[in-house]
């Protein structure tokens, strides 16, 4: 089946003339029609746009002039990336009918590379959540077990790639929102270095933490997509002027002698024994490949989550102030005045988790609490960064679990704090602005995927992906498929 192919295998077929982008797009659209009613990865599917883009790609491949190494590849994007003329909801009622007048920079870059947009994927509202249950529209299901969550907030993108409903996808990661759903869906999920990818046109959650990155079926595919979306953008002043190397060319190099740090604090008390066993075994595999594993300490890890739940909500409370019912989004009826209009609009338009974070952030920033909460959290952020700086003086890459637990059941984590604790191993990377990737490293006895996390130095995605690729190639985990038609 063409939908099971990796991006690089699919493109090889385009090159040889064994398949066309149009045939691939039709196969994916057919599969979405057949399978997505049970997975529910997509909020919006864009068949006309996809088929038109695919037909143009057909002509380029026929002429032997593809626009890029991923020309004609069918891709899904998280529904918080602005797409001109295509509804962008952010998983929220308040943006249910919002149609952006412009494309995000990553969308422009994907289109300039010739890729085919299949549609927009489901997410926790405004990217706040770890299960995609906080979408205002519906919950996405985990392709490996439909009774379980796919993780979040980019759960739709992870599920789409795992269920072969897209060849690759984009998500965003503020505290783990790419890596955690990648672990839960058994896909490769890469959060690039902060500043590696332009955030222009990404609906903002926490601007100092948000970063866009790919979901893929393997590490080569993630590297191919990263190459296209990376790079400086004049429209995002935080995008870094750092050259993007040919990440794919770097992958073939061996990892002999690579120094791998294993942080003791990431093997937390209460972690699932099946997760721990798989990750420990993965480290043995890396050692057999010539990696030199050594224990390291990241002592501030235990405090990172608490700092994050002040910093991210504080930034969110400011970013989400724009939803006031004036310029775009919904507006509540029957208001007495402008303030009443905004208060009612926001009460009706936001779900409970978004309200909770706005309240928490506003509280942390308010007079009398600013120093004790927000100021303190910013100092802890410095300590988290220093932990990593010290570690990377001794090791090249850090290896750890992506999550302490296996995918949980829908409705299992009703308590907000229990849901937050799920991100304990992904959040420090965002606070420090580092790149991180999750790859499949085994399955539980019940057949649920387990994620292995690699963390790298700033702008050293090349080494990060090389280690992840070497591991992936040495194991056979990628061949197993979810129990779907």
């Amino acid at each position, binding site marked *: 089946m063409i939908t099971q192919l990796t991006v690089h295998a699919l493109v090889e077929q385009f090159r040889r003339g064994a398949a066309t982008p149009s045939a691939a797009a039709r196969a994916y659209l057919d599969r979405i029609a057949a399978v997505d009613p049970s997975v529910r990865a997509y909020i919006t599917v864009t068949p006309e746009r996809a088929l038109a883009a695919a037909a143009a790609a057909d002509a380029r491949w026929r002429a032997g002039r593809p626009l890029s190494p991923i020309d004609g590849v069918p891709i899904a994007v998280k529904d918080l990336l602005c797409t001109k003329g295509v509804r962008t909801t952010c998983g929220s009622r308040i943006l249910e*009918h*919002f*149609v952006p*007048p*412009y494309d995000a920079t990553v969308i422009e870059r994907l289109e300039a590379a010739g890729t085919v947009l299949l549609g927009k994927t489901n997410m926790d509202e405004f990217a706040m959540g770890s299960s995609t249950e906080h979408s205002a529209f519906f919950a996405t299901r985990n392709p490996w077990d439909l009774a379980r969550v796919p993780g979040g907030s980019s759960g739709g993108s992870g599920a789409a790639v795992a269920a072969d409903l897209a060849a690759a996808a984009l998500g965003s990661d503020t505290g783990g929102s790419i890596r955690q759903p990648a672990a839960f869906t058994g896909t490769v999920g890469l959060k690039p*270095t*902060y*500043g590696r990818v332009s955030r222009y046109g990404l609906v903002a959650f926490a601007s*100092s*933490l948000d970063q866009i990155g790919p979901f893929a079926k393997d590490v080569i595919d993630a590297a191919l997509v990263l190459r296209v979306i990376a790079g400086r953008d*004049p429209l995002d002043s*935080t995008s*870094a002027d750092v050259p993007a190397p040919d990440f794919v060319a770097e992958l073939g190099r061996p990892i002999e002698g690579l120094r791998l740090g294993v942080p003791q604090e990431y093997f937390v008390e209460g972690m699932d024994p099946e997760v721990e066993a798989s990750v420990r075994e993965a480290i043995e595999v890396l050692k057999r490949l010539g990696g030199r594993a050594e224990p390291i300490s990241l002592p501030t890890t235990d*405090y990172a989550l*608490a*700092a994050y*739940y002040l910093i991210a909500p504080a930034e969110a*409370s400011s970013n989400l*102030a724009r939803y*006031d019912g*004036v*310029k*775009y*989004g*919904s*507006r509540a009826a029957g*208001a007495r*005045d*402008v*303030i*009443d*209009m*905004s*208060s*009612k609009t*926001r*009460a009706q338009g936001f779900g409970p988790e978004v*309200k*909770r974070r*706005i*309240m*928490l952030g*506003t*509280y942390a920033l*308010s007079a009398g609490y600013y120093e004790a*909460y927000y100021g303190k959290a*910013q*100092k*802890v*952020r*410095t*300590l988290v*960064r220093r932990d990593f700086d010290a570690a990377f003086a001794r090791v090249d890459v850090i290896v750890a679990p992506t999550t302490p637990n296996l995918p949980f059941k829908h409705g299992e984590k009703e308590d*907000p*704090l229990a849901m*937050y604790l799920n991100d304990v191993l992904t959040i420090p990377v*965002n606070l*420090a*602005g580092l790149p991180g990737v999750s790859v499949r490293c085994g399955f539980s006895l019940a057949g649920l995927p387990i994620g292995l996390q690699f963390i790298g130095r*700033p702008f050293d995605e090349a080494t990060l992906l090389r280690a992840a690729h070497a591991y992936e190639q040495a194991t056979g985990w990628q061949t197993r498929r979810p129990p779907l038609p």
Partner: protein
Amino acid sequence: MGGRIETREVEQVARLARLELSAEEKERMREQLDRILGYIDKLRRLDTEGVPPTSHAVPMVNVMREDEPRPCLPPQEMLANAPDRSGDFFRVPRIIED
């Protein structure tokens, strides 16, 4: 442990955040914020004396560009998502009394 945040504080923060909350929502919000702040209180145990704050992970200085005019979106496109409008204006409830 509880009592970190009181109902009147919830009401004050909700006013600042422009969020209308029902009585039931206020009480649930108070309980949940109290529990979350209880967890966050662990930060007090960490000594941060003399540690500078970090607001951004990647150090950056001001990014400047040439001051050149560029096209912007036409008013019709900017207004297309407005919940209420009048000509080329966003319409809102009256702010200033007669």
